[in-house]
């Protein structure tokens, strides 16, 4: 029969583990960004699985190290050598960015946590500083790390954001390690972003769905 002492020992073992509170308190401040980096990595995998050579670059030179933005910013930023990835498919060049701001069709800017952009538009916006226009966006995701159920507000806000990104965008979605039953319903109409919930390495089939979906969208754009 399990006693309270057993339970106490179990929680202490968990908290005192090398990946327990000590580790978490170090990484807590980047937990959202770590999730974005994870989704960014799944996008790298999708491009690689399509046979593309994926190259990591920095906006101001070789990405040594590769730096993810800590907050939304401009594609032409001069504060740090932020990283992005570049690849070509069928002669079309694409770039993968994190936390870059886009100019919506309303001219209001919007941040996308992870986004695939047409390469020529990205180049132009770095050379002649500007926010990439909505039409440059191929795919974009909001990425949310949650310890509990997602908030419905996130879904409503993301639908509004994507509505301002025009009709060129092929694939959009809200990715999270968590879920929300009502948000699944909210995102179910075909015209809405996809709900990519419980997207974590613990659910490899969900990773496969995400990667295959992006591969399909990239193939469509590369062949169009």
């Amino acid at each position, binding site marked *: 029969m399990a006693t309270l002492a057993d339970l106490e020992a*179990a929680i202490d073992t968990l908290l005192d583990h090398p990946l327990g509170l000590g580790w978490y308190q170090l990484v807590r401040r980047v937990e959202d960004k770590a999730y974005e980096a994870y989704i960014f990595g799944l996008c790298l995998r999708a491009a690689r699985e399509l046979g593309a050579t994926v190259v990591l670059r920095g906006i101001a030179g070789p990405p040594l190290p590769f730096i993810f933005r800590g907050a939304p910013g401009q594609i032409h930023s001069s504060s740090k050598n932020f990283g992005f990835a570049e690849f070509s498919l069928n002669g079309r060049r694409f770039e993968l960015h994190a936390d870059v701001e886009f100019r919506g069709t309303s001219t209001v800017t919007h941040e996308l946590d992870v986004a695939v952009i047409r390469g020529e538009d990205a180049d132009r916006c770095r050379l002649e500083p500007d926010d990439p226009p909505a039409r440059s966006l191929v795919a974009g995701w909001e990425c949310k790390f949650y310890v509990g159920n997602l908030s419905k507000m996130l879904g409503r806000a993301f639908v509004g954001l994507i509505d301002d990104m025009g009709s060129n965008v092929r694939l959009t979605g809200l990715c999270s390690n968590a879920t929300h039953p009502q948000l699944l319903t909210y995102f179910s109409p075909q015209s809405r972003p996809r709900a990519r919930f419980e997207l974590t390495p613990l659910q490899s089939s969900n990773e496969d769905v995400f990667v295959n979906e992006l591969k399909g969208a990239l193939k469509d754009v590369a062949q169009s």
Partner: protein
Amino acid sequence: MPDNEYTPAEALDLIMGRLRQRDPQLAGRIQAVIDGGKDIQERVQGRRADRPRYYRRTVRMTDADALQALVDSLRAVFVEQPLFVNSALMNSRFTAIGLPVQRQLFPSATTSNETSLAYEHVGEDKEVEIELQTETQISQEDEQTMALKQVDEGLIQGQLDNLQRLRHLVTFDA
């Protein structure tokens, strides 16, 4: 199901108390998850005697529900977080670093802004960092960036085992 000497309420009190003592911020986040309640489908008798009607309602979690939500939350921070880091680093291994072509003779590719790049370091670990001191931030962080470090798979498995043990201890017969 384990035969426990304690009730779900006692288990919840003990674990949340320990968390509050050790990390009040994490405890607060988990308490908010628990306090958010859960959606249920309520069944009532419809107008037609043979057809019940269902409606959605948000209700308080039971102590047993709260314990499961708590363990799920702990899994997110202690297991999923290191897995995100490892996955990001693993996927970056298969990429190349684009370096100015002067650094080596070949292979190379030319990008549309006419910068000739050599592809190097394919299959090697990449240094990946996350910005802490952001562009617009006035307050000063201790460091500009934080490096993502590969986490030992054995340690992650150890935490999964610890979580499984905890979940077992807080699972009660209905």
